[in-house]
């Protein structure tokens, strides 16, 4: 389908596709199996200028937005949703600085992220603060020109690999969610360490760890926006990165679908290729319909966000929910079309089905997203 991308967007998409085919696909199964973090892929993205597609030009990026980021994530995820996360997770850690950083913070951090020299991460989740993000217990207490951070963040993408962390902390317990503050913490800051690498079902080439803060002193100039704005920083960031999760889900679905179509024309049973059976044809048709619908919703949501609209939460959540549910359904059906072979690790769809699952969970579970969408709808009716 023609999506009327600009020449530059098409260029970005084509180059990301080439990287997926030539550089990611040959390594995907091994990186998944051994849990290898894709440093080499980040070097390729850096040389190709793709690290900074969503970063303003004045800070060394290409000046694109959420759509450009999503195009890269989508294409790379067709080959491996896990390796892609080194890039996408960096986007999640960078958007708080793009949206809320002051000029000094932007100058300090964005050029190195745009050039691919440094990776970023975003830390909101804690053991007792998942869907209920207001339950954050990590504290930041002012001490002269510093904040003293104490607490543990959980399941942080790119943890240990990233150099720049946007951490949501509690600076005023009495104010609840209005007492949160987002603070940039650099790797190697004394008192900042990492927990063990998590052993995950999918996205295994992505690195997930705890962030442990033990009297970690961070300069007050690293505060994003103002004290008390932490929850807003988190929500506004997620509004811009949920289409990225959606794009990851879309890429995984597309990868599984392409593999299933190819396999169905090659696999012979009852003397003919299984693609000649109507039952398979209908499955393929349904997969294609869902994928295309997801792509339409994602691209249009991205354009809605990039155009500077004020209300973007509902659209971002819709894209994330729809695409991730599609990814789960499509990858499951792809495994079904492959039959017993699909259940084996020798074929790519088994991994894709495992990778798809997380997209329904992280950056806000699909249940929480539906709450959010419904509340927005009711709010619109009342206004």
């Amino acid at each position, binding site marked *: 389908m023609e999506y009327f991308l600009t020449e530059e967007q098409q*260029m*970005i998409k084509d*180059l990301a596709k080439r990287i997926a085919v030539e550089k990611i696909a040959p390594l995907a199964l091994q990186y998944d199996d051994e849990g290898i973090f894709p440093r080499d892929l980040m070097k390729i993205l850096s040389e*190709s200028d793709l690290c900074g597609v969503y970063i303003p030009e004045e800070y060394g990026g290409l000046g694109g937005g959420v759509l450009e980021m999503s195009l890269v994530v989508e294409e790379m995820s067709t080959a491996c949703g896990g390796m892609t996360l080194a890039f996408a997770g960096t986007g999640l850690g960078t958007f708080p600085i793009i949206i809320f950083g002051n000029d000094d913070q932007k100058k300090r951090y964005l050029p190195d992220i745009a050039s691919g020299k440094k990776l970023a991460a975003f830390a909101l989740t804690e053991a007792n603060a998942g869907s209920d993000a207001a339950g954050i217990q990590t504290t930041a207490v002012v001490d002269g020109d510093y904040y003293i951070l104490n607490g543990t963040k959980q399941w942080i993408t790119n943890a240990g690999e990233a150099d720049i962390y946007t951490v949501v902390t509690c600076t005023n317990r009495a104010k609840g969610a209005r007492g949160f503050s987002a603070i940039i913490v650099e790797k190697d800051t004394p008192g900042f360490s990492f927990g063990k690498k998590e052993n995950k079902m999918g996205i295994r080439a992505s690195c997930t760890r705890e962030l442990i803060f033990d009297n970690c002193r961070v300069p007050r100039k690293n505060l994003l926006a103002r004290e008390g704005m932490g929850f807003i920083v988190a929500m506004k960031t997620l509004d811009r990165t949920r289409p990225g999760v959606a794009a990851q889900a879309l890429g995984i679905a597309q990868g599984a679908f392409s593999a299933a179509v190819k396999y169905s024309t090659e696999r012979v049973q009852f003397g003919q290729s299984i693609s000649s059976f109507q039952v398979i044809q209908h499955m393929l048709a349904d997969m294609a319909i869902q994928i295309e619908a997801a792509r339409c919703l994602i691209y249009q949501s991205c354009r809605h966000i990039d155009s500077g609209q004020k209300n973007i939460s509902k659209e971002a959540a819709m894209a994330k929910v729809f695409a991730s549910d599609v990814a789960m359904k499509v990858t499951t059906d792809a495994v079904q079309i492959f039959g017993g072979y699909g259940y084996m690790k020798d074929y790519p769809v088994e991994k894709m089905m495992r990778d798809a699952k997380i997209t329904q969970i992280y950056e806000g579970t699909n249940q929480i997203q539906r709450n959010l969408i419904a509340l927005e709808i009711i709010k619109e009716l009342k206004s």
Partner: protein
Amino acid sequence: MNIVVCIKQVPATTEVKMNKDTNTIIREGVESIINPFDMYAIEEALRIRDRLGGKVTVMSMGIMTVSDQLREAIALGADDTILVNGREFAGSDTLATAYALSMAIKKIGAVDLVICGKQATDGDTAQVGPSLAEKLGVPHTTYVRKIEDIHDGYIRCQRMTEDGYEVIEMPLPAIITVVKEINEPRLPSIKGMMRSKKAIIAIWNAENIGADKCRCGLKGSPTQVIKTFTPVHDIKSESIEGSVDEQAFRVIEILSAPPAAK
């Protein structure tokens, strides 16, 4: 370091189709690409430039569509491109091609190093690089798999052989042709691709480079292609068994048999 890389446009297939009447390559309907070996040449030039500074000029002789491949070279990071183009160059064999390229390189002036791929995937002659060196009167090394050192005035490289490699040192200016073992070519960058869209490709004809038209194109090409074919290696082998004496006897029998019977 002023480096020139010579590239060739080739069909994007290893199964080249020939026109049986004219014995020329059928290019219609086949996507064109930069000769894969030339990609390694471009990459090596870019790496030397990135390390030592200077300029990489990518050059090709061919029809106007070759500018697509030259634009790709810019997307990869080349600073400048030249297309040697004109009706007078049509039908050039390797001798005429080397002559034309040598005249263009002379026009550029102070060139320290010329890099070519070891051969093109369509013609497979591997002649243009060495011929070019002869025309320019500079030393050359073929099958380079690694540049050990390059400084003002000399280059030391490893030349791949069937059972290892030789280390060869040459004064600059010089020409090397490279094999795929030398590096892993980079992908283009977005900024490079944007630059390549706007880039102006210099087009030089025979007059521009001061070439003698009698030495260009068909007129300057002594090579006549009578027939092209893929050689069939149909070697029959025999496993000799039995006692040592029996085996020796059979070997003598084979060796002493007249050629036709072998």
